[in-house]
């Protein structure tokens, strides 16, 4: 697509900050009850954690002083009750945290996915697909821990701070030793840990080399297969393995050094507290139980650092929410309710200006004041140098994008005013690089229709069955010259798209077939560079089928659909009824190709003859020696069972 991503999607406006707060609030509110319960439980557990060492100490003291008296038994019973209670609370907390996180993730993802689908390609204009997936999967998972993390924060702070207070309360000197020792020891250990790790870098470099060699070899798999050099290749690819192993060992050594230092910190601190406590014990200022409690409090208070970790988790959750809110900031498309009157499929652009908003065209030219009428049943090719906003024009013409100003009308009705279903059943698209979305090839071809179109009302058929009658699918495939190669796939029409290796040209033919199936009862078809990877013979056959609508076993309306064709080849333009020449975002000329061809500047449009969009790798079409050669057999040889 020419509609590439915003180079800086992280830029935030006040509105987006507001959206983040709103989403954060909604997220927390969606789990309000559970969050409160969790907060309560975790605070109870924290209090229990703080009281338990004291109680154990008192029980021990009573035990040692009085033997099996009532006082000792009382404290012991208290300890048992406390331990049991905390066990129950722990189990409950774990359960509620886990289930709440799952609920939040489901809620968040459902909401986001719905919005992204409603916003459609408007979203991918700002977020490249990889980024979008990272947000929907990773960021949503992180953001979904916000309610439970928030609920647990109070308790997380309560334990170490309370322990420190209790340590000071037990004996001021013990607290002093702890407070003095903590930074001292931390500093001591820090000086020992020298950062020795460029090994991680080298490790990754060796790993990258192996991966690089592997990718090379996979790219040359046919050569390797024919030459029978698999063992030699394996040896070559694995040559950096020794270095990888060496650096791997070094990484563990570094980690061993640093973790050996970390594990000394708390025990040494605790021993220091014990030493001072022992002296106090001897002087009678402290009981044995008090000493035991103090040593436990020292350990718990050493968890002060974990508060920072907890806050970090919240910050991470917030910034993840931020990334999600940015998705919601992209407005969803709003559809109308007007009916579409009967008509021939006349498509009309009135004063259309588009791509003016920042980032909408990814540096390409915008459209300015486009006026075009494509009478029903005729075809119009749009040509222009690469970099012109042809794809934007195609997007606007079928409402994949909305113009900044102006209107697009189908048989006199603005597209904005049509309901979604009506619009999509009336106007179909085929793209240079279609995405196949069905479970099978057949399903993918029928993707532009749904159960309602073919009066299948069983909801399960949506997921499992064949949605669209097989006849329709094969008819469409035949019209797009795809039937032959689909039948040669391992499972024919039942082959899942991911398991069907396809060249750019074969993919385009499936995209065309999908559009044919969709437009069978529709009115207009928009081909956005959709035949660029076909060889010229196939392209001819496809365009004949398009103009004729003769390919249906079950006859549809007799007339050909209105066609808007984004073209980069002179031949494609020549076959259209009329040509609109796009230059600097405006229509420079409108007429028949043969008339325009007399103009040298028009011919110059086709000089480079390179498609505006990057062709499929291996197509070789844009390699300089003429785009018309097309995909000339690329890749079909490599298919296998």
């Amino acid at each position, binding site marked *: 697509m020419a509609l590439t991503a915003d180079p800086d999607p992280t830029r935030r406006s006040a509105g987006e900050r507001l959206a983040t707060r709103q989403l954060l609030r909604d997220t927390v509110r969606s789990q309000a009850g559970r969050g409160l319960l969790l907060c309560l439980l975790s605070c109870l557990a924290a209090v229990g954690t703080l009281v338990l060492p004291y109680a154990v100490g008192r029980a021990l003291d009573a035990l*040692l002083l009085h033997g099996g008296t009532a006082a000792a038994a009382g404290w012991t019973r208290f300890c048992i009750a406390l331990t049991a209670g905390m066990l129950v609370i722990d189990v409950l907390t774990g359960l509620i945290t886990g289930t709440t996180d799952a609920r939040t993730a489901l809620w968040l993802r459902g909401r986001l996915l719905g919005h992204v689908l409603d916003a459609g390609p408007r979203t991918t204009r700002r977020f490249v697909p990889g980024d979008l997936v990272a947000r929907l999967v990773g960021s949503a998972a992180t953001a979904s821990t916000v309610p439970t993390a928030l609920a647990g924060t109070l308790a997380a702070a309560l334990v170490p701070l309370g322990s420190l207070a209790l340590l000071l309360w037990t004996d001021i000197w013990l607290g002093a030793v702890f407070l003095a020792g903590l930074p001292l020891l931390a500093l001591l250990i820090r000086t020992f840990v020298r950062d020795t790790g460029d090994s991680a870098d080298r490790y990754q470099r060796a790993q990258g080399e192996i991966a690089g060699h592997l990718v090379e070899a996979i790219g040359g798999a046919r050569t390797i297969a*024919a030459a029978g050099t698999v063992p030699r290749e394996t040896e070559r690819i694995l040559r950096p393995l020794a270095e990888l192993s060496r650096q791997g060992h070094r990484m563990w050594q570094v980690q061993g050094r640093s973790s050996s230092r970390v594990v000394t910190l708390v025990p040494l601190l605790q021993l220091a507290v014990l030493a001072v406590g022992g002296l106090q014990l001897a002087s009678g200022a402290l009981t044995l139980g008090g000493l035991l409690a103090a040593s436990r409090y020292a350990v718990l208070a050493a968890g002060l650092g974990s508060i920072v970790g907890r806050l970090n988790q919240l910050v991470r959750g917030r910034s993840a929410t931020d990334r999600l809110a940015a998705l919601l900031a992209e407005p969803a498309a709003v559809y109308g309710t007007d009916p579409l009157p009967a008509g021939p499929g006349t498509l009309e652009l009135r004063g259309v200006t588009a791509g003016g908003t920042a980032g909408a065209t990814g540096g390409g030219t915008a459209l300015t004041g486009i006026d075009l009428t494509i009478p029903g049943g005729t075809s119009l090719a749009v040509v222009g140098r690469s970099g012109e906003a042809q794809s934007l024009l195609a997007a606007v013409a079928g409402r994949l994008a909305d113009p900044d100003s102006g209107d697009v009308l189908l048989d006199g009705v603005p597209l904005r005013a049509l309901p979604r279903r009506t619009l999509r059943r009336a106007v179909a698209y085929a793209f240079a690089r279609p995405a196949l979305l069905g479970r099978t090839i057949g399903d993918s071809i029928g993707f532009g229709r749904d159960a309602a179109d073919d009066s299948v009302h069983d909801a399960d058929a949506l997921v499992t069955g064949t949605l669209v009658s097989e006849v329709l699918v094969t008819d469409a495939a035949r019209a797009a010259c795809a039937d032959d190669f689909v039948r040669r796939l391992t499972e024919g029409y039942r082959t899942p798209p991911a398991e069907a290796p396809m060249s750019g040209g074969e993919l385009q033919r499936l995209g065309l077939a999908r559009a044919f199936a969709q437009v069978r009862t529709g009115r207009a078809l928009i081909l956005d560079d959709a035949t660029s990877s076909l060889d010229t013979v196939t392209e001819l056959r496809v365009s004949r089928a398009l103009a004729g609508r003769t390919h249906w076993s079950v006859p549809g309306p007799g007339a050909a659909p209105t066609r808007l064709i984004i073209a980069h080849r*002179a031949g494609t333009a020549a076959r259209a009824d009329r040509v609109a020449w796009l230059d600097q975002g405006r229509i420079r000329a409108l007429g028949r190709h043969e008339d325009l061809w007399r103009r040298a500047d028009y011919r110059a449009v086709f000089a480079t003859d390179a498609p505006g969009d990057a062709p499929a790798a291996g197509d070789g079409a844009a390699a300089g*020696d*003429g785009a018309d050669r097309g995909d000339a057999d690329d890749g079909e040889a490599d298919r296998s069972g």
Partner: protein
Amino acid sequence: MAEPGGVRLRAQGLRFLAARRNVLLLLTVWSLLETGQTFLSGYAVARALDRGFLAGRQDVGLGWLALAAVAVVIGAYGTRRSFDALAVLVEDLRDGLVRGVVRQALAAAVARPHLGESAAVSRLTQQVEIARDTSAGLVMAARSFVFTAVGALYGMFSLAPVLLVVVLPPLAAGLGLFLATLYPLSRRQAAFLAADEAVAQDMGTVAAGLRDITACGAEERVASRSGRLLAAEAATSRALARWGTARSAAFGVAAEAPIALLLVAGPWLLRQGVTAGAMVGALTYLTQSLRPALQNLVHGLGAAGARFTVVLRRLTEAPATAQLPRQGQAQPQPQPDPALPAPALELRAVTFAYGDRAEPVVRELDLVVPRGSHLAVVGPSGIGKSTLTGLAAGLLAPRAGLVLVDGESVSATRMDGQSLQRVLIPQEAFVFTGTFRENLAYLLPGTGAVPDPVLMDAAAAVGADGLLRRAGGLDSAVDPAAFSAAERQLLALARCYACPAPLVLLDEATCHLDPVAEARAELAFARRPGTTLVVVAHRISSARRAQRILLMDGTRTVFGSHRELLRLSPLYRDLVGSWSRDDLRPSYPAGPSGDPYGVHPVARTGLAGDRGEIVAHRSVGQIERPRDLRNGGAVGAE
């Protein structure tokens, strides 16, 4: 793990560990230092109290504590050294996995060259790293628990053996509960990981297909499909949380219950002669040593264990695609006719399809290519031209019929060191990181030194000498990423020329070269003595250079010279018409202002009423039928 995969993994794991007994021994020795530290952490406290602070001898008390501090430092040294042993285990495992992934990916790629490499790269970089990290975590958690527990229990035993009577039962019960839930828990974890991956994959499809979803008006359909996956993931996540409660309970029983029991049994223990210090020591063991070790074990082993198992299973599973796609039975050897020299390439009634249920790409094709001849194969895209070269090279096995090279059944397998009968250059030229010498000598038998002139002459013959000179000679480095597609093809052609194989199959091997360079390369092969050349052509000039042309159209073929085909086949005329343009602008710079019909003949044919002239698929057959060129078989070999 009840399923066969689990059994296989366990057997492999045990073999792996058995082969590294010495490392395990080393790990044990270093970990024993930690055991000593754990032992002293309670024992020294007990003694410091009993014999020091409680006895009024502060120096003795401080001495014991100092001893414990020394033990902490020594234990830390043990921790550090145990990482060395860990490194051997983990890095050996990783080495093995990397080797396996590379072998597997290469085998799969050779069998099915067109399925992408991204999966292999992700296995190599991400999944192997997950296996590396989780395996290290597992070893360390298990190790630390075992050696800490031994130290703590031995410490209690040393202080007063009766302590164990109180502590051991709940500890054992908690551990038992944990072990019992380990398997169901790891199954839930695996289910969750699988559901999570399914969601991620689905989101990937949706994100990449948003434009198409909108264009198809399939928003609701996709939302409901994805919603199901999301709900399934949430369900596995909830199931995991529910099973996690068993884990929390196990931890509570093992870590907390002994403390309470120790207090309950306090009076009895004191009567048994347990000292105050020993009580404190025991409580110290329970809270400071066993508790964290148990926490690591219970929380680490469940999650990391499942992740490790899932990833390891995926990495070590032999994919179903790893065999060459040979189908059908072994080819019968033909009866040689001693009177006639065998042709360089012969196909007898060859039928081929890409799957049992797929329709044939090639049907009952007969073809004879005599030695020293030059054949061009032409046809629309996707029609099976590359399949034909694949069959000739032995990369694909026919469903029926015979493929003979030099009168013998062709075979894809070849030991390194033997000379090749045939060499295939595909469209995607294989150039690898290394020197020019390595790249050019790639197809030559053996690994011995190749004389420079052989390689230089080959480069000069196909027109790659300029490239070689510019780069700085045979020993300069080749960086594939820096090469243009044309340069890569030149290098592959020179490599092929240097190889003495008599049958040369060029499958669009010159498609990125300009027509002049293409002609030079093709002619070099055509003129090489004893060479039989089969070229999948994509330019009419390339086809015209050949003596014979094989036109493929579906399962139908037409065979003849350029003139014959022009006369016989409308499809061939179409191809020639659409191709001519390329050949009419040999060096492109002239630009579009020249003769428009010359530069863009499509415009001309288009205007001249191509709708009447260019005939659709079926019509070709209809036109051909009266001329008796119809059937799927060959129209004739020589």
